[in-house]
C-alpha cells in the first residue's frame, strides 16, 4: 500500500478526478500515482462514488483485497465488455468439467486394471487392490442461483453459486424474466 496524499503527488484517483488529495483520502492507499490505469478502469466501470461506498462498508484490512478484485473485474470488463470476468469463469468451469470426466475415466481404468490383474494372476496370489483415488466430485451447491433463468447443476463454492457453462443465459436457457429467488 502507498499513501501519497500528504507531501507527494496526489493519488491516481484524485489526479484523475482533478481534485485535492487530502490526508486520509480513501483511495490513496490503493491507487498509487504510478498506476493511473488501475483507477481509470475502476472509475469507468464502477464509478468513484460506488467504489467509495463499497470501501466504506468494509473494514480497513479488507479494502486492499477489495480494490484489487474490483480492479481485476474492471480490467476484465474493459477488455471484454460483454462478458467481463464471467467469460473467464465460464472457461474455467468447462475446464473443471473436462477434468472431472477425465478423473472419472481414469478411476474406472484403475479399477479395471486392478480387477484384470486379479483375474490374470490365476494361481498367483492376487495383488493388493489399489485404492481408487476419490475424484474431486463437485457437490451441487445448496445455495440458490441468481435469478435470470440459469438452471442446471452448480459446483459447490464457499460463498456463492457457480454458473455452469451449459446453463449460461447466452445459451438456450436464457430468460431475463426469471423470478427473484430472494436469497440475498
Amino acid at each position, binding site marked *: 500500500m502507498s499513501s501519497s496524499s500528504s507531501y507527494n503527488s496526489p493519488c491516481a484517483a484524485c489526479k484523475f478526478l482533478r481534485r485535492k488529495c487530502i490526508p486520509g483520502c480513501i483511495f490513496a492507499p490503493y491507487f498509487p500515482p504510478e498506476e493511473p490505469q488501475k483507477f481509470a478502469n475502476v472509475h469507468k466501470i464502477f464509478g468513484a462514488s460506488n467504489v467509495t461506498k463499497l470501501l466504506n462498508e468494509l473494514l480497513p484490512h*479488507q479494502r486492499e483485497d477489495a480494490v484489487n*478484485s474490483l480492479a481485476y473485474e474492471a480490467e476484465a470488463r474493459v477488455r471484454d465488455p460483454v462478458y467481463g*470476468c464471467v467469460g473467464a469463469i465460464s472457461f*474455467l468451469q468447462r475446464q473443471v468439467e473436462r*477434468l472431472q470426466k477425465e478423473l472419472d475415466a481414469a478411476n474406472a481404468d484403475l479399477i479395471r486394471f486392478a480387477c484384470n490383474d486379479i483375474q490374470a494372476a490365476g494361481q498367483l496370489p492376487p495383488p493388493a487392490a489399489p485404492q481408487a483415488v476419490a475424484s474431486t466430485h463437485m457437490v451441487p451447491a445448496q445455495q440458490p442461483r441468481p435469478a435470470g433463468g440459469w438452471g442446471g447443476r452448480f459446483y459447490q463454492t464457499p460463498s*456463492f453459486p457457480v454458473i455452469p457453462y451449459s446453463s449460461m443465459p447466452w445459451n438456450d436457457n*436464457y430468460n431475463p424474466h426469471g*423470478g427473484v429467488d430472494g436469497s440475498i
Partner: protein
Amino acid sequence: MNSGRCAACKHLRRRCPSDCVFSPYFPANNPRRFAYVHKIYGASNVGKILLDLPVNRRAEAADSLYYEAYCRIKDPVYGCVGLITILHQQIHNAQCQLARIQAEIGALSTQSQSEVQQFQQVENVGPSFLPDQNGVPNSTSFYDLSTWFD
C-alpha cells in the same frame, strides 16, 4: 403512468421511454436484478456499457453484469474474483489427482506385463515338451515339470 415501466425506470422513478436501453433486460417483474446492478455499477455506467454494445450483445452483457453484481453483494471483498481463485484451485487439485491416478495405472500396467511375461514363459515351456504332430518328443526343449505336480 406506472404501468409498462421497466424495473430500472421504476427504481429510478422516472418515465420509461419507448427506446429505454434498460427495459429489454430489466423487466418489471424482476426488480432485484436491476437493484443489484444499480448498487454496484450505477445506472449511468450500466447504460453506457449497454449503449456501447451492439443490440444483439446487450442481453448477455446485462446478464453478466447482474451475475458480477450478485457476486459482489454476496462477497463484498472478492466478488466473482473469489470464484475464479477457487476454480483455479479446483483445476490444480484435479490435475494432481489425475497425474497420481495415471502414475498408478502405469505402475500396474508394468507390473501386470511382467507377470504375464513370466506366466507365458512357463506356458511356452509346457507345450514344447509335448510331442510334435508326428508324435516325436521335442527333446530340445525338455523341461522337468515334475516340480509343478509335487
